[in-house]
């Protein structure tokens, strides 16, 4: 697949002298969903602003669809839709007018049928004649999305789209994102919700203190760093791990009521069958077994800690 967005050695030093991006390079493939994770102030919004033309890069280059965002900004921006983190909307405008305005700003001919489709998909059609200040917070956020989609962008930036949005609506939003992906739209979203990245992203980027720590396939990331634990609950607590089980990497927890076996999900043999047989042979009785896989959250927290150290 070709790179839809190509960022090379992007640096951003704000007027006050603060270096918000310290040489970020990133290629975003056409049609993928990339989730950018990072703590507050990591530089996620700055990165998006630089691509969209809201912040001027201090150095480095950015191209979107092969068009440089500085020298060929018209062609580049035509491809981009942006849903900002803050809810910035004209309060007295009607929803339909707001969306129509956005479409016009991108030089597109009026197309009310398309706008109707977008508003319906975002469950805003009933509110099309309502003024923006009469809407709830979640609805306002969807108006921002409708505005960003009004010119049918090929690349969509969603800066924390689900902040302050209830669970049901969040699901709807993910459906919308899935639909856009099916239409071939490249999507970059930032989020603080790791489940969100886990649920919908193809690749995950982790950014902290202006540096991109990693970008990886979500599945590969989980597999590489994903250690799985098998927890064996025992009928009777034991004081120590029996001699017969010394060959296994075991830990005792819960005052000897449970054994923890850590293994690599990607290995050919996990050794679980043998372990269970030998536990029985050692005279221990199983009460229950459960497994636990480290989530992106664990990985993420680990990474950011590592970086701070």
């Amino acid at each position, binding site marked *: 697949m070709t790179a839809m967005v190509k960022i090379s050695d992007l640096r951003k030093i*704000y*007027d006050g002298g603060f270096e918000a991006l310290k040489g970020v390079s990133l290629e975003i493939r056409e049609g993928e969903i990339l989730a950018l994770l990072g703590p507050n102030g990591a530089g996620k919004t700055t990165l998006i*602003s630089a691509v*969209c*033309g*809201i*912040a*001027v890069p201090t150095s480095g280059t950015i191209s979107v669809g092969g068009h440089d965002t500085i020298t060929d*900004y*018209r*062609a580049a*921006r*035509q491809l*981009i839709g*942006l849903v*900002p983190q*803050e809810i*910035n*909307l*004209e*309060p*007295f405008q009607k929803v339909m*007018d707001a969306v*129509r*305005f*956005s*479409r*016009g*700003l*991108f*030089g*597109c*001919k009026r197309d009310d049928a398309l706008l109707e489709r977008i508003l319906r998909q975002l469950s805003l059609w009933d509110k099309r004649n309502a003024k923006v200040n009469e809407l709830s917070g979640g609805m306002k956020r969807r108006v921002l999305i409708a*505005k960003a989609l009004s010119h049918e962008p090929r690349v969509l930036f969603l800066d924390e789209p689900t902040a302050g949005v209830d669970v049901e609506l969040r699901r709807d939003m993910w459906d919308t994102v899935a639909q856009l992906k099916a239409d071939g739209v490249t999507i970059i979203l930032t989020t603080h919700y790791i489940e969100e990245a886990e649920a919908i992203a193809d690749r995950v980027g982790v950014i902290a203190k202006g540096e991109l720590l990693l970008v990886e396939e979500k599945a590969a990331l989980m597999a590489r760093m994903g250690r799985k634990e098998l927890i064996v609950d025992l009928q009777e607590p034991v004081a120590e791990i029996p001699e017969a089980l010394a060959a296994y990497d075991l830990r005792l927890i819960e005052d000897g009521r449970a054994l923890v076996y850590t293994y690599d999900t990607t290995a050919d043999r996990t050794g679980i069958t043998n372990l269970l047989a030998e536990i029985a042979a050692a005279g221990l009785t199983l009460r229950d077994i459960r497994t636990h896989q480290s989530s992106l959250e664990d990985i993420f927290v680990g990474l950011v800690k590592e970086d701070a150290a």
Partner: protein
Amino acid sequence: MNLQAVRSIYYFEMARFFRTFLQSFISPVISTSLYFVVFGTAIGSRIDQVEGVSYGAFIVPGLIMLTVMTQGISNASFGIYFPKFIGTIYEQLSAPVNFLEIVLGYAGAAATKALFIGLVILGTSAFFVDLSIQHPLAMAGFLILTCISFALFGFIIGIWAKNFEQLQLIPLLIVTPLVFLGGSFYSISMLPPIWQTITLFNPVVYLISGFRWAFFGTADVPVGLSLLAIAGFCALCMAVVWVIFRTGWRLRS
């Protein structure tokens, strides 16, 4: 040229105007009437004629200019300041538009509103005094150029301003005094000689003088100079706007 974008911004700005159309229409009618009652009737009954024109008629061009300048500035400065203030400017900054298109939209709408109000005042004046316009084309030209250049000037102020106080500062501190001292309500020749000289440093004098010439055929300064002044001011504002967008000053971080 992204004409669709210009149209969108222009219509958006005009929509605000139409939402409050009655207000936009009535307030200049009332204020003009008040000027005529106070200046035209009360003072005019003591001043017979100025340069062969009745005092009531004499103040019409100045009155129109006064309103057109302040309206042009306030409409344009508010028009661009407000999206900056509430953050919706991100859309204009990330859209495929250049500075010319943004300016055409905002300043164009502000100039249109100012022009409309100028014409309302002209119409209202006709109820109070006998008006004959000697050079209608020149009158229209001066009026339109003034609307455009002061809308541009207002646009610059709106971009420069960091808060509402600053938004009011320049119109209040600089523009209003210059306009009042620019011969709106008197002829320069009525002043003592030393003030006549000082007044010539006031750019507004040239505008009002030229505009009045279009009405009555008499002027304080040569009309060519007036035209040059207004064209020069327009070009200067244009250049400043261009530089602002080149550098992203106060717009892009």
